[in-house]
């Protein structure tokens, strides 16, 4: 499944670049092996010729090997550079395509059944998983190229004797399996433990940091810090084990190189110069296999990430361009209460009784738990498209995107003019505040709302819902965080807008002022 994921990521234009990167990697690997091997041969042959007297020296062709050695130094440099650049280019374009495709697939899902990635941990992990995939693509040309370079080294070793070549071939063939086994044994468990411990530490720390004033007031900082330090010590232990495991694998690889050299020496049957050639070829061939060690060590952490990604990329569907026209209003039923288009309803009930849940079900964000019908069809049977055509939500938590104020307003529907934005902001009592900002509508909000206060964020989200131009407005605590005067003004303006547009409202609020907008109150306890 994971292989498929990577194959899918490197289709099309990327595949061509990766093939070029492979040729560069191959050239780099071969020139690396050849540089050392040829140097060893040249030295030994030169020494033998030098010892053989003037005639032997005169017969020795030194020009070609010495020029080749210098040439190989340049070829190795150039091809390594080409390999790195092209493999990174391939990874970058692949990931650009792939991020877009993944996002499209996610976006095309029904919110009620889609995997939930809204939490900080889930989305941060997603980024980590994607970076791991990118890393795999960068190293993709290296593995076949190092195999080919190793094979080339075996070929050179034949000159030292076929037994030596056979020994080297066997050793090299066993190496990837050995590395994989070693990496599994030394790094798999610590990697999983480290990830788990880190998640626990992060959650505990965020809770503690949020409770700062309380911790200071009751003087319990030492106790809480001690608990966090214990959790951190668990992360440290796992990380240390992982790092030592990497050391073992690296040590194994370096030791293996000398074993290969010794094996070639023991089985070599040729003249000294050719033995030197095979000896150095063998040493550098094991070095060329280092890519397998890196892959094997990251295998443990990368595998889990790829499995998570594969679940997401397995989703079906593509986002389609939305139609901009306003759809005809459909009647609603909440429990036994029938509601005609244009009506204004408040849902009342104690906190935690599920009012927000009901609003989010109508908005198509979550599966309904209450008996809700749209145009006499149970809500669960209504498609997301039908629901999003009917309702515009101003949610409890504002749900703004990073970007400018205008970006957030434009989300509501395509083709919104600046005048329309200002009109909506006016109703939400945010127009003067935005006008006073140096960049006006283009002011950047930054992470989760940035410069806006909680109440202002809420009002921006209200303006956005107004701009969506849907038959029904869903308002969850629309005036939370407002002072009484602004609240009264907002309720008046909103009432006028509702009158003018004939838009219906389903409203949840603990506060009196917005409840006045509703003609009828439905207690949530009465809905089965």
């Amino acid at each position, binding site marked *: 499944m994971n292989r498929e994921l990577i194959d899918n990521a490197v289709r099309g234009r990327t595949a061509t670049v990766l093939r070029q990167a492979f040729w560069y990697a191959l050239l780099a690997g071969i020139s690396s092996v050849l540089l*050392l091997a040829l140097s060893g041969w040249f*030295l030994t042959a030169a020494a033998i010729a030098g010892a053989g007297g003037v005639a032997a020296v005169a017969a020795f062709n030194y020009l070609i090997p010495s020029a080749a050695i210098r040439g190989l130094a340049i070829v190795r440099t150039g091809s390594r550079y080409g390999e790195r650049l092209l493999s990174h280019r391939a990874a970058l374009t692949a990931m650009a395509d792939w991020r877009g495709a993944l996002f499209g697939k996610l976006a095309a899902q029904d919110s009620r059944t889609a995997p939930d990635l809204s939490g900080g941990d889930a989305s941060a992990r997603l980024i980590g998983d994607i970076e791991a995939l990118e890393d795999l693509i960068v190293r993709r040309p290296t593995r076949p190229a190092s195999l080919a370079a190793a094979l080339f080294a075996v070929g050179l070793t034949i000159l030292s004797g076929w037994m030596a070549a056979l020994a080297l071939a066997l050793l090299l063939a066993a190496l990837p399996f050995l590395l994989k086994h070693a990496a599994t044994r030394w790094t798999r468990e610590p990697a999983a433990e480290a990830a788990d411990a880190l998640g626990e530490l992060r959650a505990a720390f965020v809770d503690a940091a949020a409770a700062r004033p309380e911790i200071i*007031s009751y003087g319990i900082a030492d106790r809480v810090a001690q608990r966090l330090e214990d959790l*951190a010590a668990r992360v440290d232990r796992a990380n240390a084990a992982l790092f030592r495991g990497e050391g073992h694998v690296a040590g194994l690889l370096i030791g293996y190189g000398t074993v290969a*050299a010794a094996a070639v020496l023991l089985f*070599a049957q040729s003249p000294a110069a050719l033995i030197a050639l095979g000896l150095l070829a063998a040493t550098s061939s094991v070095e060329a296999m280092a890519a397998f060690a890196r892959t094997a060590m990251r295998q443990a952490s990368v595998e889990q990430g790829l499995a998570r990604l594969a679940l997401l990329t397995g989703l079906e569907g593509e986002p389609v361009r939305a139609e901009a026209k306003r759809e005809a209003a459909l009647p609603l039923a909440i429990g036994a209460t029938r509601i005609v288009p244009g009506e204004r309803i408040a849902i009342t009930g104690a906190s935690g009784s599920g009012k927000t849940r009901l609003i989010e079900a109508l908005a198509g964000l979550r599966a309904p738990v209450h008996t809700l019908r749209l145009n006499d069809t149970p809500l669960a049977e209504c498609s997301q498209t039908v629901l999003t055509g009917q309702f515009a939500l101003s949610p409890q938590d504002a749900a703004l995107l990073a970007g400018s104020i205008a970006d957030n307003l434009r989300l509501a529907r395509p083709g919104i003019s600046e005048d329309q934005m200002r009109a909506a902001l006016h109703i939400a009592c945010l127009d003067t505040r935005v006008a006073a900002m140096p960049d006006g509508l283009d002011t950047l909000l930054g992470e989760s709302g940035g410069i806006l206060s909680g109440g202002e964020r809420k009002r921006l989200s209200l303006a956005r819902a107004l701009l969506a131009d849907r038959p029904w407005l869903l308002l969850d605590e629309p005036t939370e965080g407002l002072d009484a005067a602004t609240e009264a003004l907002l309720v008046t303006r909103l009432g006028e807008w509702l009158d003018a547009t004939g838009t219906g409202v389903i409203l949840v609020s603990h506060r009196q002022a917005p409840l006045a907008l509703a003609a009828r109150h439905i207690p949530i306890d009465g809905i089965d």
Partner: protein
Amino acid sequence: MRKKNTAGFAWLIDLAGAALFAAGIAIAVTGAATSGLIEAEAVALILVGGLVRAVAVGLVHRLAITGAQRIAAARRLPVIRRLIGEPMAEPPSLGASAVLAIDHPQAIENYQARFMPSRFAASAAPLFVIAVTAFASLVAAGILLATFIPFILGMILAGTAARRASEEQLGAMGQLSGLFVDRVRGLGIIRHFRAEERVTRQVRGAANDLADRTVSVLRIAFLSSAVLEFFSALAVALVAVYCGFSLLGLLPFPNPEVLTLREAFFALAMAPEFYLPMRRLAAAYHEKQLGEAASDALDQLPEPLVRAPAEAAFTGIAANGARIDWPGRSIGPVSFALGRTGMIALTGPTGSGKTSLLAAIAGQVALTDGTITPVAPDNIAWAAQRPLILPGSLADNLALGRINATQDEIAEAIERVGLSPMLAARGAGLDLILDHRGSGLSGGERRRLGLARAILAGRSLTLADEPTADLDADSARDITALLIALARDHAVVVATHDPIVIEAAGEEVAL
């Protein structure tokens, strides 16, 4: 030598292993060339060299991570303690706090473990290689040294450009990840407004833009590794060519030394080791950038606030033109006075700074202007909007307010805040076990737990942060009644925008 370099020293053991290996193959090849026999001692030398190298690499890792974690943990503990439990002039946001306390120490650990040992090795090892090579061939050692000078120049030229380029690229990658994460988190609302296709196009466009820009950046960024690669290959090539011509007796200049094959081969086998430490160093360069940035960020962590001395006994509190100015926002000024008993309400919309002002009253953040009567910390109880829950029993959690509270006192506090029905419904008592997520307590129940803790603490001044936010009218009335009762024999300052609570308070201070 300081302890952190012990791992760097272990790299030198690795080099000693490399020298044994080089000597082994030099002897073996010489044996083959002169007598056609490969000596067993040579093979043994090769294998011992390999063993030394393998052990040294394992040792480097073991020493490096131990030292790195010691350094990182020493940085981490004070940061954690300050961020969760010490007054600061302007405490960082939650997200920034987590980065400071968890991610930055981790980056420092990586930097210390992966970069620092290599840095020591990269400065000491080339000298070692030159010294060892000089025993075999002075000229070969001289060649290594000679390649080093243009190498340094090349690194300065390419390295500066590469560093700038890779920093730019890091920043751009971060931005793209940020956009991607933000849009993934916002998928619900994006689908709700039927903006899937538009936002997908935006994400795709940004990703493609970045890919194109990054490739042109990488062309420069990879130059420094090309310089390293080139000189590393050149060192091998030059040593090979010199030794070969010297053995042939064909050098175009008078040879200062008489080389044997063994010496020549040894010099050749050592040549790749000369640049190897620098290649390791380059591989850890990214860790260095991140680690140094993290270290700088921790250095700039604000110092804890020094509390003004306060009377031991609480006699009331007064604010006079108290104002907090932070970049981009200004809170206050406010003035009020409160005696030993009674309640005042700090009011204002969400984000107007009510919580920060409460923290200033508690002496936990600094005022820019004006004064507030200092109150001794052990006279203050804090009823939080989202109170801390540590894994343990409900009774233990309440007793965080007062360590020596009896079971009866705890039970009474629970009764007063109206948590008893919840316990009864769960069939649980004071020993109800809570995990750090609160074991399914609702937001309102958790709030009451914080209030119970404050009551149990029995402090003279109670600061309550939004005690009724997100509660229904009935629950809000219960809590308000409790605050009124508390204010009969205590001083209470409540941050709220709830009209019921504001009405219950004797005085309203608007922000």
